[in-house]
């Protein structure tokens, strides 16, 4: 036990490790010792593992801590449960990301176990897994198999809020990208996540296209349940424009298209055309499969509430089969709000009574019962910031709505600030761009292509002398040239 404790505490050493090389060497040596300890323990680890955890610091001795914890949690949890789980949570919230890069597979096994929901209550599980994912990859730009597990757990158990910080990140890297080679030193903190997160480092399992699609679908649905229509729209759009080949289109893509139509009604009040870079075969499939949805959408933009309502009712079985009943209800209730918002394209000031006459509720297909209802609806819209306007009262007691201009003029300084903010955001893309560029620039195919191009250029320059000669003749006096050669 003492010996084991000594092994565990041996890393990191007391003295500072100056550079990455020294760090790498030290940790590799430590890794060997740990492996030996785990493989061939003098006394079974589970007997005194708890004590080891008590005596080591999860933030400082992360690697050793992980090793011990792993043997206690996987394949099955040892007693005392409460104690080990408490340690598990503390570890996942506080580990040192640099050390655990050397034990990716152990960490993901633990995370998988947590995501299965058997160890921790779902609310806690989502919280700690999200924290762990962002600790491994603070940019959140790399997709892993853990992402999908987290999304499933969060959505199925309705613990969405803690997962949002992961789900909101822009994912641009995917496991299994061609020409991603093992880095020399995993401890290099400047590495792009796409380099150290790899199926060889154990942080992720190989993923399939359906995993990526499923993850986006789940995140879209999470945003839907948070009523963040903008983000849901973006998530569904990622699915329906997913790159395809050989006329491919998956069922998830078609499902996402249906939701995308409804969400764009909610976020924009109308359907925008499918982005052109969506696969042509998929786009064709959407037109056929999404027909009932398109019909609802085309009515949403009109003033014909009654027809919209009957159209929705007519196809209620379809919504049920597609599990879009909830979204459809949202669409119906949002209809009148959009009608009111569209009034600002025609009116600058309009009385509440007139609004009541001109807009209908799609839930009933009729106008609202009283002016007070309309007033309350507008109040809510103004409060929720979806409508820019003020309610005022005339001398004769008529209440009316004044629409305010949607965009306010920013001062020059504010504008510059806004622009600078975007510039910073663009700069933030630079590492991603660099990583991609490096990876693609050093791929075998590209280099082959480059050599071929160079060769061709070289061939051309050999041809050039004759070309040069001819142009030379053109420039000269032709007669003179003829006589000199003759």
């Amino acid at each position, binding site marked *: 036990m003492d010996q084991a404790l000594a092994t565990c505490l041996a890393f990191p050493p007391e003295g500072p490790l100056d550079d990455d090389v020294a760090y790498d060497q030290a940790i590799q040596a430590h890794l060997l010792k740990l492996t030996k300890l785990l493989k061939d323990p003098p006394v079974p680890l589970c007997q005194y593992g708890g004590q080891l955890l008590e005596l080591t610091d999860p933030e400082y001795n992360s690697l050793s801590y992980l090793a011990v914890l792993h043997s206690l949690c996987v394949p099955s949890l040892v007693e005392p449960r409460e104690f080990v789980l408490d340690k598990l949570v503390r570890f996942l919230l506080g580990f040192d990301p640099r050390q655990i890069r050397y034990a990716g597979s152990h960490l993901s096994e633990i995370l998988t176990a947590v995501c299965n929901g058997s160890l921790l209550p779902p609310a806690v599980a989502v919280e700690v897994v999200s924290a762990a994912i962002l600790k491994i990859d603070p940019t959140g730009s790399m997709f892993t198999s853990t992402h999908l597990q987290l999304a499933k757990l969060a959505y199925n158990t309705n613990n969405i809020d803690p997962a949002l910080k992961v789900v909101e990140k822009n994912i641009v*890297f*995917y496991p299994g990208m061609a020409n991603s080679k093992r880095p020399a030193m995993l401890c290099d903190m400047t590495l792009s996540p796409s380099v150290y997160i790899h199926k060889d480092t154990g942080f992720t399992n190989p993923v399939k296209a359906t995993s990526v699609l499923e993850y986006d679908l789940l995140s879209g649905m999470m945003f839907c349940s948070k009523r963040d229509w903008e983000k849901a729209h973006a998530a569904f759009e990622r699915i329906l424009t997913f790159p395809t080949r050989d006329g*491919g289109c998956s069922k998830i893509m078609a499902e996402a298209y249906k939701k995308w139509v409804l969400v764009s009604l909610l976020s924009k009040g109308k359907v925008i055309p499918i982005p*052109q*870079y969506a696969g042509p075969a998929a786009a064709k499939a959407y037109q056929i499969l999404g027909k009932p949805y398109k019909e609802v959408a085309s009515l949403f933009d009109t003033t014909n509430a009654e027809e919209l309502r009957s159209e929705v009712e007519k196809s209620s079985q379809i919504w049920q089969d597609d599990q879009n009943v909830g979204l459809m209800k949202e669409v119906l209730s949002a209809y009148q709000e959009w009608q009111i918002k569209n009034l600002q394209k025609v009116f600058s000031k309009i*009385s509440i009574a007139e609004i009541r006459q001109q807009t209908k509720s799609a839930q009933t297909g009729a106008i609202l019962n009283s002016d007070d209802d309309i007033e309350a609806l507008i109040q809510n819209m103004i409060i929720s910031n979806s409508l820019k306007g003020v309610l005022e009262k005339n001398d004769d007691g008529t209440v009316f709505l004044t629409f305010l201009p949607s965009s306010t003029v920013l001062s020059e300084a504010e504008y510059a600030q806004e622009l600078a903010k*975007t510039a910073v955001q663009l700069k933030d893309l630079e590492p991603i761009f660099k990583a991609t560029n490096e990876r693609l620039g050093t791929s075998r195919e590209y280099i082959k292509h480059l050599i071929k191009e160079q060769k061709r250029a070289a061939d051309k320059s050999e041809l050039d002398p004759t070309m040069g000669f001819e142009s030379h003749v053109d420039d000269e006096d032709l007669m003179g040239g003829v006589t000199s050669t003759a």
Partner: protein
Amino acid sequence: MASADPILHFFTIMESQSGVIVKETPKLDLDLYIANYRGRTCFDRLLLIGRSSVPLCVDALKAAISEAKKGKDVQRYRDAWECIRIAAPTDPESQLDTAWIDNTEKANRMETARLEAELKQYKNNLVKESIRIGLRDLGEHLEQVGDLGAASDAYLRMRPEASTQAHIVGVAKHLIGIVIQRRDWPSVLANVGKMLTGGMSDEEQKAHQPFQKLVTGIANLHSDKFYEAAKNFLEVGDPSICQGCNDIASANDVATYGGLLALASMDRSELQSRVLDNSSFRNYLELEPHIRKAVSMFVNGRYSACLDILESYRADYLLDIHLQPHVPAIFSAIRNKCIVQYFIPFSCVTLESMNKSFAKPGESLESELITMIRSGVLRARINTIDKLLVAVSTDDRAEMQAKGLEMAKNYEKEALERIRRMNIAAADLEVKGTRKGVGNAMSSISGETWFDDTRRQLSQGESSAG
């Protein structure tokens, strides 16, 4: 179902055939009007007036019958008779003149046979010019008889026999005459194109300009291209030559069509320069002074007066063979333009004064304004509380700022999306089709193909965004 009033009965039938019915008395005088035309268009125009105008119905139909009897086209006589039989059963014209029909049909058959025999003879002699003349005679005869399909065949066969530019133009003119009667507007434009195939001197061109512009204008009018049509009519040129085209339309028609369409499609400065200051078109405007008055009213900003003039002539326009189907569209275009122009100098107008200028008494303009604003014709907002129409003041600065920020955001989004797609392709995660064989072959060489593929798709998206 013998109705008490045969005219009423006649027009209920016309209405059920979704014909246009004009109850108001037009300003035109039927005899003077029809004297402007010659050829087959006379009958078409008379029949149209007979079928549309309540006050002129019987007169026009009678004139149509006598016009038909002057010619050789039996079917036309039958058409007119069908109408008058219902509209004026007591008139002597309502008795079918079977003797005339039999005689004419017999004469027509003999004439056709004679011309065909002659043509055969010419063909045996192989003299190009006589074949051409023979075909022309046959075509003209068939046209008069009313067999338009056979007539256009005969004219078409003239083309290979044509040996001079004038012959080609002649063929085209004949053909255009036929396709106008058949109301086949795209063919009109195609034949005008053929008529203009090079090699014409300036003088010749000038001589053909009225005809060519006139028919192009009519074809454009029927294709709803009001602006192009207006320009065509304004460029018709010499009225004395135009007079020669009165088998299609009269010079008065040129003035009316040109003026109305210009009002519907041009702005004030263009109307001034292209219509009022147009020396050749002035000759036409003199024939229809009310059009000139309406245009100058519009240019001078007296919109309601302009609309009043046009409104008082609406019945006349509705009885014109070419204008009839387009009158509502032209009028609403002019009206919309008047409202827009009226509003331009103001930032804010009371709805009351708008109603006074444009609305019919006792009616409100509001719903019309709403449709105009919705369709984007009028850039304004209605204030129903203070009863005002308020101009939309666009803040260019705010717009620019919003655009700038939007662009920056889109740029970021696009950059991310591009990188994402590249990486998906690199990780071989695309959704693949199930085409067997082809798919396998593709995946075996995927290393070569993937980036071409994505690049193409993205550049499509880009071209649409740009």
